[in-house]
């Protein structure tokens, strides 16, 4: 056992490379080496193997000696490019350092845009009564004098119930629009800019002239089309927008076409948004409402004024209600509107004219609706209606109806008693 352990220890020492008698004896064995001939053969083989490589290396070294010639040029060009880049970056950095002042002014303006939006939440809307039928002549007679020259609108009188229902939701939309205004400072949202600062095509006057008139014609054409009437002639006429006679470049806010467009709901608002499209898209409708609210806030109109106007409009509508009830064929159209049937522009108007009416102003929406309804009548019926207006001493409305009749039916022969009416 001891002998075995001794051998085991010797073996472990052998594995560990420790000095031992066996290792010493092994080193004393003949230290054979290859002879010189063998060494020379191996070394000659090694040199011969690398000789082509060495020659190539020498050639490569010669090429390297020439390299600095073009390397200097390349490094010079790289240096120029680098310096140019640094200069460019520094210039951009300088421009950016000048930018904070502009950003501060922009942010301040954005805040100014936001504050009125948060204050616009109209307290008067929930108290509005249900929407009556379109107002008749008294409202029309009262509004032209009070109508402001701009399209910035007070709250509408007609769609109050809908607004009352959606008031909380619209408040959220307004707040969201305020948040958007903070982020986005595009000219579309920058409504506080003066009119002369805006591009010409974005001014209110141009918008009213270029968009309201053709769309009003389109609305009339749709009305004719839906009634199965003589569409072709009128549609061809409406397809070509014509300049409004005697009002080139100047917006006529009391024009017949504009009133008809407002009533039909097919006009564009002050911001170029198609009201029909906005009414079709709920999100667009909300956005449009928010815009209208902001516009009203920027005009800084007190809510009391809006309420007063709404009250006057409601009273006018109440007065005109019996007349509408007396005409069975005309009362059918608001009934259709109540059922949300969009067959005629007049029927669409009550359901969709909340935002456009607010944007359009207070110039007799009810009277305009009546005008629109009359425009859907056959010419003979329309003439009768004009005579009724004259009998009711509503000469202005009669003249508007007559002017629209002439435009809509240019081939129609106006009776003699009305031909000279001025």
């Amino acid at each position, binding site marked *: 056992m001891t002998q075995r352990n001794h051998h085991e220890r010797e073996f472990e020492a052998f*594995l560990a*490379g420790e000095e031992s008698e066996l290792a010493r004896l092994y080193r004393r*064995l003949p230290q054979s*080496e*290859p002879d010189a001939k*063998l060494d020379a053969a191996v*070394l000659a083989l*090694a040199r011969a193997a*690398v000789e082509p*490589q060495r020659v190539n290396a020498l050639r490569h070294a010669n090429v390297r000696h020439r390299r600095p010639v073009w390397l200097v040029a390349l490094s010079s060009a790289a240096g120029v490019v680098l310096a140019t880049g640094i200069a460019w970056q520094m210039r951009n950095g300088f421009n950016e350092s000048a930018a904070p002042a502009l950003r501060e002014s922009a942010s301040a303006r954005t805040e100014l845009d936001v504050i009125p939006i948060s204050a616009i939440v109209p307290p008067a809307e929930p108290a509005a009564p249900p929407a009556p039928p379109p107002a008749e002549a008294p409202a029309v007679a009262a509004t032209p004098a009070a109508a402001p020259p701009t399209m910035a609108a007070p709250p509408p009188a007609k769609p109050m119930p809908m607004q009352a229902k959606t008031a909380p939701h619209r408040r959220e939309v307004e707040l969201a629009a305020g948040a958007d205004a903070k982020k986005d400072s595009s000219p579309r949202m920058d409504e506080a800019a003066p009119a002369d600062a805006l591009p010409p095509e974005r001014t209110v006057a141009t918008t009213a002239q270029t968009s309201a008139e053709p769309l009003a014609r389109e609305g009339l054409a749709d009305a004719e089309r839906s009634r199965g009437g003589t569409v072709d002639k009128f549609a061809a006429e409406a397809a070509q927008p014509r300049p409004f006679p005697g009002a080139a470049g100047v917006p006529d806010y009391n024009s017949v076409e504009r009133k008809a467009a407002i009533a039909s709901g097919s006009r564009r608002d002050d911001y170029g948004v198609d009201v029909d499209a906005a009414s079709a898209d709920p999100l667009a409708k909300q956005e449009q409402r928010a815009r209208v609210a902001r516009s009203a806030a920027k005009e800084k109109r007190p809510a009391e004024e809006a309420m007063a106007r709404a009250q006057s409009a409601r009273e006018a509508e109440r007065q005109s209600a019996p007349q509408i009830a007396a005409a069975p064929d005309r009362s059918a159209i608001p009934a259709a509107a109540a059922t949300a049937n969009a067959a005629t522009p007049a029927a669409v108007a009550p359901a969709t004219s909340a935002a456009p009416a607010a944007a359009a102003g207070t110039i007799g929406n009810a009277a305009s609706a009546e005008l629109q309804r009359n425009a859907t009548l056959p010419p003979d019926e329309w003439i009768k209606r004009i005579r009724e207006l004259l009998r009711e001493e509503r000469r202005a409305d009669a003249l508007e109806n007559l002017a629209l009749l002439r435009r809509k039916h240019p081939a129609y022969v106006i009776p003699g008693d009305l031909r000279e009416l001025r």
Partner: protein
Amino acid sequence: MYRLTCRPMRAESTDEELMLAYGRGDAHAFEALYTRHRGTLYRFLLRHCRERASADELFQETWSRVIVARERYRPEAKFTTWLLQIAHNLAIDLMRRNRPQAGPEETELVFRQLDAPEAERPERVLSEFEQRRRLQRALEDLPDEQRNAFVLRMENGLGLDEIAEVTGAGQETVKSRLRYAFAKIRARFAE
């Protein structure tokens, strides 16, 4: 005896650096490398083949393989291990071709050809000579695997893992071979 005049910097370079330098075309690096390993490689092959002619042939072939493979060499492998692996494989191939193995006469001839160092005292000359003769005989009598492992350990100073890598065997197998070789040599000295 061949003498190489190596630059001082060559003496500080590792085997792997020299081999990489030779792979790039530096013939002097190969000279330095050859100087370091020519003796150990030759003895390893001589112990393996037991005849000088075969050892010379394998020696030259081993270095030829190194020269051919100079550009493929990667320093991940230790140069000594790689060199001995080449030599071992060539020796195995040669042994397979030359079986049956050489007899005791050829072994004695090889032993006589080996250079015998001079001893200091005459009485020890015989004793030393006898001891070296016994060791030489014991190595000759070992199986090839055991002898290779023993020579790689004693001559080249390789560890178990390196021997395993050179011979292609597991470490435990190498250890077992070394244990048997060690025991047989000790037994021969105990006679």
